[in-house]
């Protein structure tokens, strides 16, 4: 067929790249049943998935005897925490809610300001707060469902309302980054004092999910700066500092966390001079988690430090900045933002690894969920599946939330643009 070129109608240049719209049916035919092999795979895996979903769904919604969770929800949350003092936990949440809300609101206002000046890498979506909290709201919903307590629901709602109020106030006031962080830290400190201070309950008597949170948050807050210092020390020009840091990192990366926990539980006491009071088991567990995690954080951060081009340091030196300022203002900010995914992965690990403290006798979430199956009402009824499923769900919501937040943070810092 010989069509002469000059007789053809000129094709109007499309303003946007052409897009194909597929109906669901076309999509399925193309992607699921494209070939003989595709069809077989689709059918086989479809059946497998359907079977699994059916079995799990049937168990969760029909067969499972959730009364073991319902009756033990307080045990799972706080374990050996004295019941007379539970009001302190609620009071702490009522302090934490608004201060964290305020921090989030103030940070959101700062981002919006950036977007208005046209220099934000990603313009923040409106009303994304609810979606961001999705996994946590799901967790709270499930916990309240199990608690079946009017009082707990009311108090949780109060925390939520105060949190939203704090958020709105934060958006209004819009403090600088440093002051926002200060407000949040003050809130956390105040919540801690509400629980422990004035004849309260020290963390050696915490348990359940509350202990899990303490170990995870405390572990992250302490292991992060310690790990950064180790990473910097490993690149120090002083041979002694370097050697100590390398030895530390290699030692702790070469030992299983369980071994570190055992050493923390049994050896810290010996290492202390006579007359010094031995720290509580919770403190020793926290120290072990921090020592262990810091070694990994150090190696992750070192990767980021190596990625900062030498020219950055030279430019800063040429401007007359001191070594300290070059590290804190130029090198670390760039190094840390490239290693956010690795860091968050490590923190998620830490969050889940807190379950290992059960082995030295602490009653955190996983330990409680095993112990309650030995209660007289539930013993030898195979209810461990229910309790483990519950614990897994709690860990998963926390880990998934952290993972999503890290992705957001990456996008916001414009990772990949450098």
């Amino acid at each position, binding site marked *: 067929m010989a069509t002469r070129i000059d007789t053809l109608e000129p094709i109007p240049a499309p303003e946007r790249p052409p897009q194909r719209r597929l109906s669901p049916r076309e999509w399925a035919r193309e992607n699921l049943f494209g070939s003989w092999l595709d069809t077989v795979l689709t059918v086989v895996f479809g059946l497998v998935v359907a079977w699994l979903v059916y079995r799990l769904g049937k168990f969760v919604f029909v067969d499972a005897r959730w009364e073991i969770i319902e009756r033990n929800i307080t045990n799972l949350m706080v374990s050996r925490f004295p019941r007379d003092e539970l009001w302190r936990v609620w009071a702490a949440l009522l302090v934490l809610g608004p201060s964290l809300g305020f921090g989030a609101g103030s940070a959101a206002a700062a981002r919006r300001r950036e977007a208005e000046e046209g*220099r934000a890498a990603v313009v923040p979506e409106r009303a994304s707060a609810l979606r961001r909290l999705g996994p946590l709201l799901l967790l709270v919903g499930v916990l309240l469902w199990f608690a079946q307590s009017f009082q707990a629901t009311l108090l949780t709602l109060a925390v939520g309302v105060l949190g939203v109020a704090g958020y709105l106030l934060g958006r209004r006031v819009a403090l600088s980054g440093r002051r926002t962080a200060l407000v949040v830290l003050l809130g956390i400190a105040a919540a801690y004092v509400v629980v422990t201070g004035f004849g309260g309950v020290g963390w050696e008597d915490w348990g359940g999910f509350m202990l899990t949170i303490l170990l995870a948050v405390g572990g992250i807050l302490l292991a992060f700066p310690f790990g950064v210092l180790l990473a910097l020390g490993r690149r120090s020009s002083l041979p002694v500092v370097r050697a100590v840091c390398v030895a530390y990192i290699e030692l702790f990366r070469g030992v299983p966390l369980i071994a570190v926990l055992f050493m923390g539980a049994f050896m810290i006491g010996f290492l202390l001079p006579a007359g010094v009071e031995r720290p509580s088991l919770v403190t020793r567990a926290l120290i072990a988690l921090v020592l262990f995690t810091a070694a990994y954080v150090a190696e992750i951060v070192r990767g980021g430090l190596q990625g900062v081009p030498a020219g950055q340091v030279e*430019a800063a*030196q*040429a*401007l007359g900045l*001191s070594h300290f300022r070059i590290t804190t203002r130029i090198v670390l900010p760039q190094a840390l933002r490239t290693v956010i995914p690795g860091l968050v992965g490590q923190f998620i690990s830490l969050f889940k690894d807190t379950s290992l403290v059960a082995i030295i006798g602490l009653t955190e979430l996983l330990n409680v969920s095993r112990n309650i199956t030995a209660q007289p009402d539930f013993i030898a009824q195979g209810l461990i599946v229910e309790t483990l499923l519950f614990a897994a769900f709690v860990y998963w919501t926390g880990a998934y939330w952290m993972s999503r937040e890290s992705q957001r943070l990456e996008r916001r810092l414009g990772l990949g643009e450098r």
Partner: protein
Amino acid sequence: MSTENGKGMIQLEGVSKWFGDFQALNAVDLAVDRQEVVVVCGPSGSGKSTMIRCINRLEKHDQGRIVVDGIELSDDLRNIQEIRREVGMVFQQFNLFPHLTVLDNVTLAPRQVRRWNKAKANEKAMEHLRRVRIPEQAHKYPLQLSGGQQQRVAIARALAMEPKIMLFDEATSALDPEMIKEVLDVMEELAESGMTMIVVTHEMGFARAVARRMVFMAEGEIVEVGTPEHFFTNPREERTKQFLSQIL
């Protein structure tokens, strides 16, 4: 701070530098006067960059003396910082801080090193950004700018420390051709304003127009020094002639 001989701003005396077994600088002598613009050229690997990087101690020289505005460069950290405050530098790869806005790039050193307050630093920074003709980009991040704009920001950043000397290390070599001129124009204005400058460049048109003196280097040595007229029309040394015939 008195200068050693009259109007001298920078003196290099017998400066040598080795990288391992490779001798990058071989007994280099050079004196630069106040408000003088010296253009350094030569084949790659001839030690041009190494020489100017020794002046603000990005490289440590192994032999000889370097005196900047009456301060002799030594291993003393305070002494090095003092010299770096007086010497601005512009790099081939810009080396802007990508995590800071243009304005923060420019104000960082004045605020941290000169201890200016934010208002003063910002005001001065905007002055310098106007001088390099990009005040409207102050709130953007470096990677949102073109190469030429980035290099002009880098010049503003160096100027913000109010240095007495500016070093340019192949400042236009990484730029696309259409952006070279906007950077050279800024450098030319800076020269006319009386800044003491040492410029390593292959832009011979710029050298002819702006240089008070030309320095030709090869194999770690200064081969020939002269005025641009003499240098371009009637070079003495064989190696200079050869180099010029290759690039002109």
